């Protein structure tokens, strides 16, 4: 033992406040990685909240351009939402498959997640292209600037998620379910679910509230 271990103190807690649970030492890699990624996700959500705030401030600044209710199509948004929520489920399936080391179900779950993500992106892209072609691009009014930024920022995240997803599939293909690959998979799953949560916010604040006005 070291000289550190020889210290014998009657009271580890000099102020006698409650029972002190001794700290066991550094956490495992899995916990550290997941924890760090959670912290990143929180910061990402702070960034989104700025775009939400900007949208809330600018929503009525239409500069004689269209209002939300004039341009939002409920049917498209419904399909988008279903795709994304379903993809979260399939992503969860893929995570479970990874945990039990089942390659087939992993690839299947990830592939379906990818397709659903791509459908989501395609619909969003079509919505944007359609708006721009009608002259309702982001430079038309402050409202549209905020709308395109908020929804587009989420779309960018989904695109990055799809790239990451494909990388994960390739990694499992090349390296199998190694510990570091599994840690990355866990982060990816957290990321994908977080996108879902943010979409629920976008869906409610932008499309549901916007259609009523």
């Amino acid at each position, binding site marked *: *033992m*070291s*000289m*550190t*271990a*020889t*210290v014998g*103190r009657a009271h*580890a807690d*000099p*102020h006698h406040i409650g029972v*002190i*649970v*001794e*700290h*066991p*030492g*550094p*956490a495992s890699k899995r*916990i*550290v990685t997941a*924890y*760090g990624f959670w*912290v*990143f996700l*929180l*910061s*990402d959500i*702070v*960034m989104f909240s*700025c*775009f939400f*705030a*900007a949208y809330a*401030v*600018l929503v009525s*600044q*239409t*500069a004689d351009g269209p209002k939300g209710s004039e341009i939002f199509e409920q049917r498209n948004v419904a399909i988008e939402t279903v795709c994304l929520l379903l993809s979260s489920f399939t992503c969860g399936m893929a995570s479970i498959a990874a945990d039990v080391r089942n390659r087939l179900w992993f690839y299947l779950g990830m592939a379906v997640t990818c397709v659903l993500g791509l459908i989501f992106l395609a619909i969003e892209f079509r919505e944007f292209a359609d708006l721009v072609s009608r002259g309702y691009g*982001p*430079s*038309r*009014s*402050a*409202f549209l*600037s*905020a709308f*395109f*930024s908020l929804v587009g920022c989420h779309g960018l995240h989904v695109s990055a998620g799809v*790239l990451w997803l494909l*990388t994960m599939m390739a*990694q499992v293909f*090349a*390296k199998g379910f190694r510990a*570091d690959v599994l840690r*990355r998979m866990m982060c990816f799953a957290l990321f994908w679910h977080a996108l879902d949560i943010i979409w629920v916010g976008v869906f409610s604040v932008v499309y549901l509230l916007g259609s009523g006005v």
Partner: protein
Amino acid sequence: MLGKLDWSAIPFDQPIPLIAGGVVLIGILAVLIWVVVKGHLPYLWHEWITSVDHKRIGVMYILLASVMLLRGGSDAIMMRIQQAIAYQSQGYLPPEHYNQIFSAHGTIMIFFVAMPFVIGLMNLVVPLQLGVRDVAFPTLNSVGFWLTATGALLVNLSLVIGEFARTGWLAFPPLSELSYSPGVGVDYYAWSLQISGVGTLVAGINLVTTVLKLRTKGMNYLRMPMFCWTTLASNLLIVAAFPILTATLAMLLLDRYLGFHFFTNEAGGNIMMFMNLIWAWGHPEVYILVLPAFGIFSEVVSTFSGKALFGYRSMVLATMAICLIAFMVWLHHFFTMGAGPDVNAIFGIASMVIAVPTGVKIYNWLFTMYGGRIRFATPMLWAVGFMVTFIIGGLTGVLVAVPPADFMLHNSMFLVAHFHNVIIGGVLFGAFAGFEYWFPKAFGFRLDERWGKLAFWFTFVGFYITFVPLYVAGMLGMTRRLQHYDVAEWRPWMIVAAIGMAVLSVGVICQILQLVVSIRNREALRDRTGDPWDGRSLEWATSSPPPVFNFAFHPDVRGEDAYWDMKIAAQQQSLEHEVPEYHDIEMPRNSPTGFVCAFFATIMGFALIWHIWWMVILGGIGAFATFVVFAWRDHDEYVIPAAEVAAIDRVNLEERRNLVSMAGAI
């Protein structure tokens, strides 16, 4: 092909930036040639550039900050000279150049001096104080550093290629919008901050995770050294505030690049929203900088008073209170913009409330010193100088937190004096105290005390001669950012301030000389014990400089002031030691990922500034490829065998036993 970039971007008509740029370029080339010819390149590459060791990265952060301090300091000297001679004349700087100088000065000092300095110190010290081997994500740590370096590089590039923003350090719209600032200055500003901001966020996530999840055995939250607490608070603020900066700058860039209308005058843009967003980041930023400095002072004051920190728990509480209240005061930055008396009153009170936990800290430091055996070594001098200076800065802060007073003092030189009072007296003094205090830990030899004390006194006195006149000028109605003026009463104060700047510069020169002298006499100043100051926390329990794995075995902490307890216990138990049991240690392998990332980020940033779209795409592909290659690595760790660990640690233990037996003899 090259976007907006052509020969007109290089300011051939302005001698000052060209000569400065030329000298710097020659300097860099000379260093590079010297490095290559002497054959140091492989050493630099393997030991520093690709290093993922938190101690090395910390040192590189501090080096970057020091270099940029000289750059930002030259800007300050130029401004003080300009204002001293620009009474009823144009001075020697044309207005647009002067505007670039004050914008660059603020931007550089906050983002590329203060931030890297405190992050560097946290990087260097926190894992050591926590008794662990590295930060939570070592490779990411290197990425964070190199992205910060990219931002600094882009700012410096603007000196010679193109121009820097003329919009102040926060680029307020609509002035920073395309219609009023059509040049590349604001783009330089925004992209360099955007890139280095990502680096800062990465560092923040890393350090939060390190403090919360990587403490050594027995180190409960209420046994962490104060510096770890303030690091935690500061990095929580980084994680919560820097995304706001990212989003705000992204909106500004969308306005400028794609014709969006977030902050424009037309089409419903809202300029007040920029003010709210930027200060929702900017105010916490002040505490991101000053909280680590508070931590450094806590360590320094308790070590050099030979006493445990007074009121440790109240200190923790005060730190976390500041962390929270930091987010509730941002609106005091625009009291005068018509928010109404109720809003102003609430934010005014919130702003004043921050003085309470800060006051708690000041009293705790004073009571730590009271009855202690105080040694006035250089770090302690900086700490005492800080207490005096910061109290003045804090009091003037409470003054401008009173809305009616703020209506008088808003945007005046009084304000300039106030925030230099807290930033220099708080953050910079703290950085210097930390630099002097932990230098022997990082390099294995102490800094020369004589030059250190000279540096302190010149800086301290120079600081007062420079900034007290600015308070007076502000009371006389002088506003900030004046390129020239016609009011006779202001002039004497500006001349005194310029003289103060000269004294301050002598302090800086002393500090450089201190470094030179200390390196030359390093054998005489060598610290073999690893504990040159008779320290109290775990960083002093290992050798100086620490081995790459920091600790041969995880220390077992039994109370506050972990290392102090160990020393006392070792003395009491009359030096009977068993040989520790050593194990193999896994350490992260060096990686060029950070450097390569920054390389592509630099290319992308530069291309974005000049609208060179093909280069942007190239940089983007490169960045993604780096990400995949990094993810593809098979062996990211290497093992140090137990025998080697034992061999390295034996030397350290031997020195330590000598130290304890000497102390026991006394």
